[in-house]
């Protein structure tokens, strides 16, 4: 675009100044560094998870592993606690998504209708919660009063609707032509039919976006798991399990000793096992990432239009 077109000896050709050339080259290199900076830490852990037990405690750059070992994968994929934590996370995602998406759609659709009575009041009540909440302890006390502590549903019910998601969905509904509603109404359809038969099928992109937001939020959540279900080890979700293994150190994975044991050369070492659970728990995100990012970007752009 910024190339200067100069005519010399009757011939026209494209030319960039030396300064621009240098800038371009540096810029390409800089972007390459960004690329490496964002992927290398993950690559590093993947390679580390494949190291042989005997090499595990030698520091390395982990650019490549010449003789990969799957010992730690075999070990972790048989770990009952680890696998159960996946199940708990899947269960909470399934429950929270199926109920949450319906509730979000209901409220978003209702608030998108300009003729809805008390629209401003309801919007005010809902939006206020984005700015002010009871806080950690009062919410904990409420869960205790509702007898929800140490119950699976405590992981699902408090986070069913996100006001932010609701608002981007409402904005999307509002961007659809209102004539659709009017003509269907004249034909005798009620609000629920209009929503489910006309507006929802037209809103697939935003439903996908919000679904993914819900799923990722529940995939990554752990703090509720930590404080609301202290007595139920069987309700430990994936992220809390990772927290206990990687951060708090309250769960020891694998058999002792941690150090490489020459008598037992196939016994994986702590560092490798930790790298392995990081990889296994990140794979689902990496697999869905191309799909994820497309809808997330759409969502943030829709959300910023009127948000």
């Amino acid at each position, binding site marked *: 675009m910024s190339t200067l077109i100069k005519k010399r000896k009757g011939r026209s050709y494209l030319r960039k100044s030396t300064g621009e050339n240098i800038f371009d080259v540096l810029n390409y290199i800089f972007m390459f560094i960004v690329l490496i*900076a964002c992927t290398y830490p993950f690559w590093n852990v993947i390679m580390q998870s494949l190291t042989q037990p005997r090499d595990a405690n030698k*520091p390395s750059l982990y650019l490549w592993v010449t003789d990969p070992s799957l010992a730690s994968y075999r070990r972790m994929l048989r770990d009952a606690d680890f696998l159960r934590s996946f199940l708990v996370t899947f269960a909470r995602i399934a429950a929270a998504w199926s109920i949450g998406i319906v509730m979000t759609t209901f409220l978003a659709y209702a608030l998108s209708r300009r003729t809805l009575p008390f629209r401003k009041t309801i919007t005010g009540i809902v939006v206020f919660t984005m700015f002010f909440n009871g806080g950690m302890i009062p919410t904990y006390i409420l869960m205790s009063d509702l007898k929800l502590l140490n119950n699976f549903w405590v992981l699902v019910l408090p986070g069913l609707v996100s006001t932010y998601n609701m608002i981007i969905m409402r904005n999307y509904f509002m961007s659809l032509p209102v004539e659709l509603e009017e003509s269907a109404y004249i034909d005798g359809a009620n609000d629920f039919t209009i929503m489910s038969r006309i507006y929802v099928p037209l809103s697939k992109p935003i439903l996908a976006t919000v679904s993914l937001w819900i799923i990722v939020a529940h995939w990554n959540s752990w703090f509720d798991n930590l404080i609301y279900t202290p007595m139920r080890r069987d309700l430990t979700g994936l992220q809390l399990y990772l927290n206990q293994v990687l951060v708090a150190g309250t769960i020891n994975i694998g058999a002792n000793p941690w150090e490489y044991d020459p008598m037992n050369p196939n016994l994986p070492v702590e560092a490798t096992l930790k790298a392995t659970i990081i990889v296994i728990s990140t794979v689902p995100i990496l697999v869905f990432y191309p799909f994820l990012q497309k809808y997330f970007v759409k969502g943030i752009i829709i959300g910023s239009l009127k948000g």
Partner: protein
Amino acid sequence: MAEKQNEASTAQAEVLPLVLGKRQSRFKRTLKECKRHSLLLVMAGFVLVWYFIFLYGPMYGLLMAFKDFSFRKGVFGSSWKTDRHGNLDLFANFTRMFKDHAFLRAFRNTFIISGLKLLVGFPVPIIFALLLNEIRNRRYKKLVQTVSYLPYFISWIVLSGIMRQILNLESGLYGYLVRYLGFPEINFLTYRPTFRGLLTVSSIWRNFGWSSIIYLAALGGIDGQLYEAAEIDGAGRWKKAIHITLPGLAPVIVIQLILQVGTIVGDDFNQIFNLYSVPVYEVADVIGTYTYRQSFQDSTDFSYSTAVGLMQNTLSFVLIIITNWITSKFSEYGIW
């Protein structure tokens, strides 16, 4: 029916003042709308019940901040806060807070860490977006952009795990640099002088790509004709960036800046909680982590923790209201 209603309303219009008549017709209209949209109201009402239980419900617990909470007596049964002599002293928790060394430290750290992240981190996505915008190869550009917000989707627990693996002196990448390239033998996760830097850098690393999306969208929205016109006038790349691109981004930058200033009292609990440890409490303990420890680890003083939380929430509420108000002013009058 309709006739009767008409009769009634004309009769009232004769007797009652005009204003009241108008109000009544509005009431009737609302009633009619309610009937027409009864299903919508039921749908919204169903979700509102959830809002009242789970988001407004906890607010009664805020009373704890002014009480001596005991689990046995519950929020309402617990007695009000008193001082040593038994006199009513509702704000005892708040006065205690500002005499508590650990709280003041957390308060200070919250501002310093958020401030650092804002100061260093705010320009990064803007610069990244501007530079990425100059890449002509579309596929390369798309690739870099897509990869840049990958870390945003990974939880802080996993990222903390990755950082621990890499910074491990025995087996990690940094251990390699120490052993073979003579880097200083430092465990960064417990090293006080650089810990805030570690928090800042890792937070920027996780968020810059994601934050740049909004700037890239704004860049895409700048009218291409402006660039063409500038080219005809002989403007080079640099001049176009200064005179077209930056002014085009300015409103977005201002709004983002104001919004981020509004969140400065908030702390990134997930990040700090998963990275900090006792040796770095001095520089990294923030209000969120402090409150957590006060209620679940070091003690179970729920009243005091509630008071701390209430103070933080109120402060951030006020800040957000102020900054939102400023933003709306800007978006109303900001023409550039």
